[in-house]
């Protein structure tokens, strides 16, 4: 049996490990554009900030990689032939397959403002981007960051940590408006300002002006001119769908898959940021851009590819992110009615399901340093957002994950909100394992 995996990210790695764990003799070919060993994509933010050195982003030891016995090809998969079961690579090789996995991830959406092609307009997608950013930060005085979600913040903070003066342009009135409430946005923004980042609200790039092909300054819609060396862009990501589209697979926001991650074509699977799975509650197709979700997808897809029983029921999305030195846990649906002007689509470390607007009741604690916001449905906790309180985060995650029935608590929730919040956290803490 020959398994071919396109993509060497989290989903591709997890699939390869799952296949090898079940089948010691199968051939596993992994085609990946990036020449690097397996690394932590979320960890790139800390490499940029200088918190860890380059060698620390790699996530598997030599022995672990050798034990997988992968036939790794650093190349670009260009064409997927379903009828002949072949994959065509840019370098000319033709790779036959019995089972194929698309784990091609999502790519940063390129900006469309005039001047977007200039040298110095940068993004944060992969290891090469970060090495490039680090090299440029050394000689840069000032950077303009645009976009929303965690990646924009990571760019702003990472460049700031490298001594670059940072101007963060927000199209809207506040940061990550579709996930955070106004108080939470304010806290993140205050932290950024405390780190020396200049915020410009309701401001867009009108155009980037270059000098000899290099970024020289930004003209904003507010009429300002900001002299700068770098323009860092994080306006959202989009699944890499070229192969699937060209092969004629069923596509929505991502490559549509069933509960075993099989696409509309037999023996062709998709997992990770590129896959669109069905939300069991709403029935809608959802794409996530989340590390642990990509790992879970890959592990189940790999198992299914070996023919072993495997099935996926999408759990409520969980993300933990660090924004302006605040650790934020987001679980389930916490969506805000405001649209987010800073994102074209989904951001990295983001889930479309967080935007679902639950017709539910919101409760917030009043300790600003350890803010907790829960969204309670008729019977269950449907979502929670926790700032800086790991024990509360773990407890509330359990309640959302296990759909713990809260109907008995409902009256208390209405009568004494602060007391009820504390009881919810106690209940979750008592609920046992995560």
């Amino acid at each position, binding site marked *: 049996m020959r398994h071919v995996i396109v993509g060497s990210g989290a989903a591709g790695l997890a699939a390869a490990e799952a296949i090898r764990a079940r089948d010691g003799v199968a051939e596993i070919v992994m085609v990946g554009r990036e020449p690097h060993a397996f690394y*932590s994509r979320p960890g790139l933010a800390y490499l940029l900030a200088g918190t860890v050195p380059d060698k620390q982003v790699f*996530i598997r030891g030599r022995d672990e990689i050798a034990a997988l016995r992968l036939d790794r090809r650093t190349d670009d998969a260009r064409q997927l032939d379903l009828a002949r079961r072949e994959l065509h690579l840019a370098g000319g090789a033709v790779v036959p397959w019995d089972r194929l996995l698309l784990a091609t991830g999502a790519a940063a959406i390129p900006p469309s403002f005039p001047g977007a092609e200039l040298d110095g307009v940068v993004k944060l997608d992969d290891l090469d981007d970060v090495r490039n950013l680090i090299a440029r930060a050394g000689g840069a005085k000032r950077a303009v960051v645009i976009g929303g979600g965690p990646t924009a913040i990571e760019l702003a903070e990472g460049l700031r940590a490298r001594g670059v003066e940072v101007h963060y342009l927000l199209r809207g009135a506040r940061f990550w408006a579709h996930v955070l409430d106004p108080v939470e946005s304010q806290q993140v923004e205050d932290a950024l300002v405390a780190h020396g980042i200049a915020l410009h609200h309701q401001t867009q790039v009108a155009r980037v002006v270059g000098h000899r092909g290099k970024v020289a300054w930004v003209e904003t819609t507010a009429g300002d001119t900001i002299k700068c060396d770098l323009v860092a862009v994080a306006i959202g990501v989009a699944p890499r769908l070229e192969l699937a589209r060209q092969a004629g697979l069923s596509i929505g926001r991502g490559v549509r898959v069933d509960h075993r991650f099989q696409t509309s074509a037999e023996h062709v699977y998709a997992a990770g940021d590129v896959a669109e799975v069905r939300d069991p509650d709403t029935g809608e197709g959802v794409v996530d851009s989340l590390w642990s979700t990509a790992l879970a997808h890959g592990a189940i897809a790999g198992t299914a590819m070996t023919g072993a029983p495997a099935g996926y029921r999408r759990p409520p999305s969980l993300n933990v992110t660090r924004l302006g030195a605040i650790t934020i846990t987001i679980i389930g649906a916490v969506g805000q009615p405001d649209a987010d002007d800073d994102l074209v689509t989904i951001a990295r470390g983001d889930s479309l399901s967080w935007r679902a607007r639950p017709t539910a009741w919101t409760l917030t604690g009043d300790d600003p340093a350890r803010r907790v916001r829960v969204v309670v449905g008729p019977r269950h906790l449907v979502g929670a957002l926790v700032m800086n309180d790991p024990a509360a985060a773990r407890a509330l995650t359990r309640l959302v994950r296990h759909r713990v029935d809260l109907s008995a608590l409902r009256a208390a929730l209405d009568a004494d909100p602060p007391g009820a919040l504390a009881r919810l956290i106690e209940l979750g803490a008592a609920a046992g394992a995560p």
Partner: protein
Amino acid sequence: MSDPLDLLARVRLLAEAVVTSDPERCVQCGICSYNCPIGIDVRSHARVGAVIVDQRCISCGECIARCPRDVLWFGPVEDAAEDLP
């Protein structure tokens, strides 16, 4: 470190608690391993949700304090016993 209460608290931790992890929160950034003064590969424990039963762990809490995703905490030793192979 010289505060006797600190010392007492640390002795109790050594006796009663172990570094515990929630793999779902972990993004494998490696900050924990990088900052462990003993050189324990905390990340590989966090990846699979294993507790750190390494005799060399001095319960300094450095990995817990530095983790940007609140993956790690001092959990009761009983949990560790359950998780042992």
